[in-house]
Structures are given as C-alpha cells and as structure tokens.
C-alpha cells in the first residue's frame, strides 16, 4: 500500500482506495450502496440532500458519506438502526411535498427517488397537510422543461452548471422552502451542454421537452452507440420505440466524454427520421434532381442492385479511359469499415489512387505519441493550434476546462482568432489570418535556438517577438505537453509545420510530448488511418513504400500518387476525370470554388452519390445510392484521441447497410471476399492496417480501445510567406459554429433556436479604414460570390483578416474561396 492509499472498513469489509476518495465512492468498491441524490462523482460533493448519512466510529453524529474523505482505519457502518432511521427521515422530508405523479412522470422507472424510497423509505406518509403546489411545466430553454413541483432542490444541476460548464447558467433562486432552480433574469438556460442536467436530475424535474410524455422508459429499446457529430465520438444511448428515435442520453465513458455530451449529441440526431432521407436508389436526369424518364433501374430498385450497376459502370469507364479517369471522394463522417472498403474498391477493384476525403492538407500519423483525451488532464501544458474546441469539439472544451480549473494544467493557444477558451488560457498568442505556417515555424525555430540547433529565417506572422519568446519558454519548460491542433483550419502546408514542431518539442530533454489532431469531423482520424488519401495506403503507408504495398495489397496495387479531392474537381472540369463516386460528402456546398464545383460535376460522364440525406451534390448525380448513416449503421469510428469505438444499430433500415453495398460492388469488380457481417470487415482492418492490430469487436466492446500509432511520414516542406491580397481586400477565415444549419441540423431541428445569421468579425483597424461599424450590413465578395453579413467589430482577428463563422449551408461561405483551396481574399464593402 502506498502513501497515497487509505484502508478502511465499510460494513465489515476492508477496502483500500486512493487518498481523497469520498466515502460514498469507496463504498461502491465493496458493493455497499450508500443512497444519494445530490452527489455525483463527476461534480463532487455538495452535502445538500443528506441522503447518504452513515455512522462512522468515534464520530458523535451521523456523517454524510458524500462529503467525507476516507481516513485510515475508519470504521463505517451503513445499515445500523440509527442510519436506517435517518435515511427514512430524510426520505420522508424529501417526499413531503414531492408530487406522487410517478404514473405520468418521464423519470418513472429510472428514478433514483423512486428507487431509494423502495429500498430505504417508509411505506406510507405522515404528511397530513396539502402538498405544496408549484409550476408543472416551465420552459428553461426551447429544449428543457422544468417541473418545479418535482424538484427536490438537490442542487446537482446548479453545481453542474457552476463546476462543469463553469458559466453559472443555472442557479438557485430564492431561499428556504421557496428556493428554486432558475436562471438570471429568467433568461433561457441555453448553452452547448445544457442537456446533461436532464440526465443527472435524480427526479423528473428537469425534463427533455422533446421526450416529455412520449414514452415510458421501460418501453424503450436502449442501444449503446456513439454520437455522430464531432470528432469526440461521445458515448450515447439511443432510446428507440417502434423503430423511432425517442431520446439520446449520455453513456459515461471517462476515456472519451467524462460522462457528458453536448446538446448537439442529444438533440441533433433527429435527422435519422428526416424527410430528406434518401431511402431508395434512384436515377436522376442530370441537373434537376428528378428521376429520369427512362430509368435503367426499376422504380423500387434495391440498393444492392443499383450498386451492382454502378460498379459495372465504373469498371467500364476505367477500362475505357484508364484508372486515372475514375475517382472517389469519401467522408470523414463514415465508419472505418465503409472507408476501408471504399478505398479497397478503388485501389484494388479499379486500380486508382484517386481517393480523398478532405479539402485541406494532412498526412496520417504523428511523429510523437497520439494522446487520448484523458492525457489532457495529466499534461502540464495544453497548446491549442488553430483549434476552437468550444465550437468544433465541445466535449474537449469541458475536458480542458476541467484540467485547467481542477488540475494543474496551463492552457496556451496559438490561434488566428479569439476563442471562448481564451478565458482559461495563461497565454493566447494570435497570428495573422493565413499566417499559421509562419507562426508555427517561428515557434519551432524559437525552440531550435533554445536547443542550440540551426534555425531558418522567417517572415512576419503578426506575433510580437516578446509573445513568441514567452510562448517558446512556456512550451520548453512544460515537462509534459499536449498539442491540440485542428488540421482542417490550417491552410497550405502548415500541417507539416505542426509535425516539425512536434518533432522539435520532443527533442527538449525530459519532455513528454503528445498531440491530438483535432479535426471536427466524426471520423477524421479514422479516414486518414483507413487510407482515404491519394498518397497513402491504410495505416499511413506512403506510395513510395512499394514493397510494403505489394506485400499487403498484391502485385497489382497501384503505387502512383492519385488526385486529391480538389484536383479531381479540377480534372472533372477539364473533362479528364470521367466518373466520380461521392460517399456522404457534399462538394457543391462544402468545397471551395462554389459554382465552379457544380459546373465540374456536371461535366462528369458518371456521378454516383452514396449519401443518407438529399444534398445539392445528390441532385447532380446520375445515380443515387441510399446510405443508412448513424442510427442505422454499424461499425467503428476513431476519435480525435485515437480511440476506436463501436457504433451500433439502434434503428432498423429498409436498405442494406453501406458496408454491404460497398462489398457487393467489390464483388462485382472481382474481389471474392464474402463479408458476412460488419465485424468481418473490422477483422480485415485489424490484419491489414498498421495500428489496428488490437482492434476487434471484442476488444472495442462498449467503451472502445485505443489504436496504436500509425506510421508517420517525414515532413520536409517549409513555410511560405503569407501571400499579399489585392488592394484592400481581407484574408478570410471561416470559423466553425457548432449549431450550423445544414443537412443534418435542418430547420425542423430541435436546435433550430441556436441558428444564427451571417456575421463577419473585423479588427477595428480594418473597420475604421472601411468605414464599418458594429451592426452594419456588409457584403463580402470573391470568386463571383457575394455574402451578406452583419459586421461585428470585436477584434476577433488581427488587422488584414476577417472571420466569418460558417452558420448555414445557405450562406455558401466556402464559395468565397478559390477552387484550388488556396486563396481566400475577400473584398468588403458596406451596403
């Protein structure tokens, strides 16, 4: 037993736990259940409800097990007469004015108050007065309704708001018998994490407005699956009834979400029943999105049959025009199995490396450890590069806040815009929009000089020498650092700069260095690992490693570097690319280039779109294949921390699952593998993909399994100076906004109240020059695209830049970037 452990006796059972453990948690270790209402292990002690009173030897009175730290040789009794009397008493008080409307209460059947009364309470009441009446349904926000009559004032929710969200959005109002949960000035309780209070409410007071009175909890089929939004891959439980999604709840997994989910996870899955869902395969007459008049496919053609036809068509084109004439744009939102099979289909079935899933540059693997999100809590310094977790990866935001406020972690950020987490950072260094490559190199060079290595000269990134010096010092002296960078927000080759930086940090003596590639897409890491890339095979094997490729994938495996997504669009425009398969991606809306993309896609001989919801791209397709998508599909995804977890089927689909459709296409193209179930694909991934050897259905289980690191390529390129804009134009930075109105979160969404109109954030220097004031309407133009926005002069970025959060598809903000993805200079004028 170490110094940090304490041994005590609870109900005659000896238990050894770490110092600082609360009695109530220690008891769980030896299967002694001490009843609680207010205590939650993630929130910490409150001591409000008094339900957990226990007898501790040598203490004159009963103690609350939730507030008491374990002490050596403590003797605790939880079932004595005195304790039972106290528990009965507390329960009597708790129920005194609690309505007995369990038969209609949403919490009924899973209610801690019900459970505790059954276990420890008295069968009848001594209350002879009229129970207190209170408001039965008050909206705290458009998605949360509070039943004040049921509230037992345990303060769990307000403590959550104070300690976890840390914004005190929810507070106790008034006092004594009249205290109630509410908000300042009756403003809506509306933030990114509000829904968690529904899960933690020990009674039916905080209810999910959407789920209210919809189903009894015991009638739900609960499936343990994953959130399909950001790269955190938080664990959720989907409760369904009669094949309809009723509600989503958090499913605590410390390694991933620490027990919390964001509101997008909770209310953002209604798309599974969207009326825009693609449910059957169809042929379009190109351009109008309507079924063609003379279909080759029968009207109610099954997805499998249509897929077979598609595969044959691709095969024909590849044979006629060569493998370079076909391409595949995959999705960072699809599962590993789907992505793996698709790359296999194009590489081995069609002989093409024209495979990609992104419009920014990135390479698989890291030169240092790939940290999982838990490592943030044990790091001394977390360095954010171009990352805004609050909007991009909300649960990472909570994890960082926890590390900073409850641990000894320091947060530093190197960013081109101010972010919400700046409040928690010890240093926020801002570079010019577009200056990331220079800024990152400056940091690398600064470290190199400290380490006595040669450092190249550098251009101006907009960071003062003092700021950079202090940043270098913070990084150098950090002992353990976790670098969180968002590759999708890095322009040009800046991502190679990050990897050179990581290598440099790792050279600092006694430094522990790890990184989290924090792209906001669900399975961005998995898509890289699965080789959805023109220049890497799965597991980060580069095209140059022909030996390895031939060994793994056979003699005929193509080793010429393929086209990137943007190159494919460019070739399509020139008529050189003949056929394109797009899986769960919407290039028309999400790719730079705007109308140019549409024109390019129209020139294709064959466009097949395999998607779950109708998109602008699907309208252009010759053939549309139904993709089931989250809720219906099965498989694994890899989160930003490299943790592979299982997504499970919560709803039954009419169509074959995606992996089945792809495997059928593979069969048509000559591959003879017969995948009977999705785990057969997972097994093949374990065999073929470096880093995934340990991954199997069993090892992934309910809480996931970290993959090993994948091979990392050498990074050589160095940063180019920021390109100058034409006279007076501003460099555009598209920021992420969590609740953007898109296909998945459409107007019918429960989260529609979060939708925002376009805003453009200016530095006061530029605003002054352009005569723009807060609240003015401005027009941003580039590439023949105009975007109207409300100006906000809030110095969100340095002079010379403008930040535009991507708030909706309709905004078409990506159209402002040139089709090659490089330049993003916009003209701004006041309207």
């Amino acid at each position, binding site marked *: 037993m170490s110094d940090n452990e304490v041994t005590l006796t609870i109900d005659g059972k000896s238990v050894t736990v770490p110092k600082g453990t609360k009695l109530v948690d220690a008891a769980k270790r030896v299967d002694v259940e001490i009843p609680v209402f207010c205590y939650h292990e993630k929130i910490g*002690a409150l*001591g*409000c*409800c*008094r*339900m957990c*009173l226990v007898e501790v030897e040598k203490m004159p*009175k*009963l103690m609350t097990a939730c*507030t008491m730290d374990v002490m050596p040789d403590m003797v605790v009794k939880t079932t004595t007469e005195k304790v039972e*009397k*106290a528990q*009965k*008493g*507390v329960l*009597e*008080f*708790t129920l*005194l*004015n609690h309505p007995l409307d369990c038969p209609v209460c949403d919490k009924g059947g899973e209610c801690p108050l019900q459970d505790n009364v059954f276990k420890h309470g008295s069968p009848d009441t*001594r*209350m002879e*007065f009229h129970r207190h009446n209170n408001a039965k349904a008050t909206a705290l926000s458009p998605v949360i309704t509070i039943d004040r009559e049921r509230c*037992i*004032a345990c*303060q769990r929710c307000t403590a959550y708001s104070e300690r976890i969200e840390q914004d005190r959005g929810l*507070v*106790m109002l*008034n*006092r*004594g*018998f*009249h*205290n109630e949960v509410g908000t300042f000035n009756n403003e809506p309780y509306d933030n990114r994490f509000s829904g968690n209070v529904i899960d933690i409410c020990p009674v039916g007071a905080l209810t999910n407005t959407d789920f209210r009175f919809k189903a009894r909890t015991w009638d739900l089929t609960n499936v343990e699956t994953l959130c399909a939004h950001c790269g955190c891959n938080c664990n959720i439980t989907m409760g369904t009834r009669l094949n309809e999604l009723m509600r989503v709840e958090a499913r605590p997994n410390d390694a991933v979400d620490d027990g919390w989910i964001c509101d997008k996870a909770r209310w953002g899955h209604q798309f599974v029943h969207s009326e825009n869902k693609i449910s059957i395969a169809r042929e379009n007459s190109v351009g109008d999105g309507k079924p063609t008049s003379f279909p080759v496919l029968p009207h109610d053609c099954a997805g499998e049959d249509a897929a077979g036809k598609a595969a044959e068509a691709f095969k024909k084109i590849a044979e006629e025009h060569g493998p370079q004439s076909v391409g595949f744009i995959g999705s960072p939102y699809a599962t590993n199995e789907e992505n793996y099979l698709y790359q296999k289909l194009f590489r081995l079935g069609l002989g093409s490396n024209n495979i990609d899933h992104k419009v920014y540059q990135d390479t698989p693997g890291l030169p240092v450890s790939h940290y999982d999100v838990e490592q943030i809590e044990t790091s001394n310094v977390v360095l954010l590069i171009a990352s805004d977790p609050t909007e991009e990866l909300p649960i990472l935001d909570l994890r960082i806040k926890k590390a900073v406020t409850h641990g000894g972690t320091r947060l530093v950020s190197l960013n081109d815009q101010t972010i919400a987490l700046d409040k928690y950072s010890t240093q926020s260094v801002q570079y010019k929009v577009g200056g990331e490559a220079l800024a990152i190199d400056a940091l690398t060079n600064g470290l190199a000089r400290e380490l006595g290595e040669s450092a190249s000269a550098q251009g101006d990134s907009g960071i003062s020498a003092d700021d950079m010096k202090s940043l270098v010092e913070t990084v150098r002296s950090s002992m353990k650092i976790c670098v969180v960078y968002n590759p999708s927000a890095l322009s040009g080759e800046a991502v190679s700069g990050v990897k050179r930086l990581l290598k440099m940090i790792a050279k600092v003596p006694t430094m522990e260095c790890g990184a989290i590639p924090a792209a906001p897409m669900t399975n961005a890491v998995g898509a890289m690992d699965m080789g959805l890339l023109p220049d890497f095979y799965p597991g980060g094997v580069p095209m140059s490693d022909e030996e390895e490729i031939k060994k793994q994938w056979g003699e005929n495996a193509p080793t010429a570097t393929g086209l990137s997504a943007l190159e494919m669009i460019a070739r399509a425009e020139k008529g050189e690319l003949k056929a394109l398969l797009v899986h769960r991606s919407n290039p028309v809306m999400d790719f730079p280039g705007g109308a140019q993309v549409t024109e390019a896609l129209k020139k294709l001989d064959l466009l097949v779109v395999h998607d779950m919801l109708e998109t602008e791209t699907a309208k252009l397709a010759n053939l549309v294949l139904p993709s089931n998508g989250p809720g219906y599909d099965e498989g694994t995804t890899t989160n930003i921390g490299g943790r592979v977890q299982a997504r499970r089927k919560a709803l039954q689909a009419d169509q074959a699952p995606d992996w089945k459709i792809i495997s059928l296409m593979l069969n048509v193209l000559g591959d003879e593998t017969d995948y009977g179930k999705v785990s057969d694909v997972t097994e093949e991934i374990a065999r073929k993909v470096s880093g995934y050897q340990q991954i199997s259905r069993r090892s992934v289980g309910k809480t996931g399994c970290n993959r090993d690191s994948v091979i990392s390529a050498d990074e050589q390129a160095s940063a180019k100076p920021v390109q100058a804009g034409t006279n007076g134009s501003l460099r555009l930075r598209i920021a992420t906004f969590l609740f953007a109105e898109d296909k998945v979160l459409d107007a019918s969404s429960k989260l529609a109240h979060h939708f925002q109109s376009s805003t453009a954030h200016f530095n006061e220097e530029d605003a002054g020059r352009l005569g723009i004031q807060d609240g003015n309407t401005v027009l941003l133009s580039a590439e023949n695209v105009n975007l109207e926005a409300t100006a906000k002069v809030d110095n969100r970025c340095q002079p010379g830049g403008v930040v535009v959060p991507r708030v909706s598809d309709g905004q078409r903000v990506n159209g402002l970037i040139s089709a090659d993805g490089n330049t993003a200079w916009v003209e701004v004028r006041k309207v």
Partner: protein
Amino acid sequence: MTQILFKNINAKDLHTLKVYEEQGGYQSLKKAFARKPEEIIEMVKASGLRGRGGAGFPAGLKWSFLAKNVFPRYLCCNADESEPGTCKDRELLLKNPHMLIEGMILCSYACQIETGYIYMRGEFHDLSFIMDKALEEAHAKGYLGKNILGSGFNLDIHTHLGAGAYICGEESALLNSLEGGRGEPRMKPPFPAVEGLYAKPTVINNVETLCVVPYIVNEGAEKYAALGTEKSKGTKLVSVSGHVKKPGNYEVVLGTPTREIIYDLAGGIRDGNKLKAFIPGGSSTPMLPADKVDVGYDYEAIAEAGSMLGSGALIVIDDSVNIVETTLRLISFYMHESCGKCTPCREGTRWLYQIVERIMQNKGQLEYIDKLEDICGNMAMKTFCPLADACVSPVVSSIKHFRSDYEEYFKKIPVSSV
C-alpha cells in the same frame, strides 16, 4: 461591577477618534508592535478569551490554526448579529467603533493579516456610515494604512453590508456572501483558517471578541483571566429582552447568577408577573424553566442546565404566555431563514410550523407531540449547518419543560373534529 467593553460607553462622542483617544484608545498598538505577533496570540490564549459569537471557541487557539506561510490572509469581523434577541454588537458599533478597529488591528498584527473586512448585516446600514467614518479617521491618523505607527505593518479595513440573511452569520456562509455568492454554508473541511475568504487563510471573529483584545493587550492576559469562572473568563455582554422592566445590554462578569441579571440589572419581571421561562443565549438555544434561574451565567453552568450561552441574548418569558406561541414564533423565524440547501431543514422547518400552527388552531391531536419530537429527531444533527438544530431546540425544550402548555390546546378540541 467590572466594565471592559461598556466602560464609558455613554461618554459623549465616544464614536469620534478624539474622544476615544482621550479615553485611552489606541494605546495598545504601540505595546503590541513592540512584541512579536506570536506573543500576542499567546497572550490572547492565556487570557482565556472565547469567541463571543455563539460557539465560544477559544479565540487565541483559532488564530493559531491559520495555515502556516500562506499569504495573503484575511480577517473578517462578523457583525452580522442576526440571532434573535441579540443586540450587543449593535451598541458597540454604534457607540464605540474605534474599539473594534483597535481590536482588529491587534488581531491582524498577531495573525499577519493585511486586509480586514467588517461584514455587517444589511439592517446596520446606518451603522456602516459611522463605521466608515471611524475607519476614515483611523486611516487619517495613521492607525490604518501602510506602515502603521512606523511598525512596518500594513492594514486596510473595509465594511461590507449583507443582503439580509440569518445564515450569513454562520462563518462560512458569511464568506460566500462576502465573495458575492449565495449565502449558503460551505463544506468543512477545509476550515476557514486553511481556506477561507478567496480560498486563503481567514480569521473570523465576532465584534465583541475583537473588542476585548485591546484590554488584554493593555492590561495583560492575567488581569482578564482573573475575571469569571475557571473556564469562562472575562466579561460578557448580555442582551436582556422580553418581559423585564429594563430590557437592554448589560456587561456582566461570566458566572454571575442569571437571577441577578434578570432581577437586579433588568429590574425584574414586568407587570408583577412571574418568570415562566428564559432563553439564555439567543433564540437557537434551548429554553429553560424558571426554576433554573439561579444558574451561573457562564458557558459551563448553562450547558449543565441543558442549554447554551450562545451569543448572550437572554430572552425572558413571563407566565402570561403560552409557550406554544413562543415556539411557533421561533419556528417561523427559522423557517423563513432556512437557506434551503439541506432537505431536513428546508422541509422540516416548514412541517414543524404547519403542525404547531394546527395545534394552536385547536385542531391538533395528542399524537402530534410525539410526531413533533420524532421530526425533530430526524432534523437534529443531520444538516450541513446548525440552523435545523436551532429550529429544533425551542420545540424540543418547550415540549420537555412545558408539555402542559401543548396539552391545553388539545383540551379545547371541538368534539366533532376528534
């Protein structure tokens, strides 16, 4: 009679620095600064001075508990005086603010504190002006601020008004309120001496406690310790209220028989009535029947008699009163003042009120008495802070000593409702 705190209390313009200095004010500072801070703590320990706010914890010991080598530290003077029946601090603040300032300077010097706060209940709004004026004068004279009297010791004192909650007299709730938060007690440990105001070591003392310190420094610990009983040293301000002829604040040497306080100082029971009961130390302490009136007014004797000295508020009840009425009034106070954090207190105080109210409406049943005792048992010692215990104490003690008063109400029950 020995008067320490109330010596010259009615002197004209005592609240001004000039008069206070003429009476010998601020003389203790030089004496203190000539000694090491630890010596002052030892002195206060030796004097046997106990906290006058209610708990009676030895003041010097409390000061010595401060976490070592953690700075800054804070001093909070508890001037929330919210215990019903208590009005002694009010008189000190009103008439002799400089005595408190002097006491705070000594305490701060002893504990190496450079910032002090006087947390006054919101109703002391008028007194806060007097206090602010006094602080200003002391500051101008160099008793506060940087390098006080050339000692190198710095101190600033600020007043803060509460928003009106009984619970803010509880030290940790006071700290929450002072920080701008909700007035709810904090979890202990950590105790304020380790993590108090702004999570720094903090001393919290009652006005009266701090006001005694200049005397101890001036006259020596022995002289103070010579007063009173073996364990209850010195003098105590007693706020006598209720059915006496001369209610008011009196300073008595601890150990003085309660009878003397009621009959000699306060002039005896009004209107020729007889003493029925008295609450010796503020509304949260159990009431005692008339036959205990000879109990010595000190911590130990009163505890032995079954109550507490508390804040020194002696509430006298004569025989014109049915104790149930008194009890209901007291429950009503605690029901109103419960912060609502703990279930037994929030729900229990209201339930007790409902039951006793029903008894007074002649609608009760004899079983109600047992039920009241059982509910009290479920509340007592089961909550975060002692507010629930404070509410329970009049109920339990009234049933214990005056059960017949309850039974009178049941006699009047109309036959139809039985």
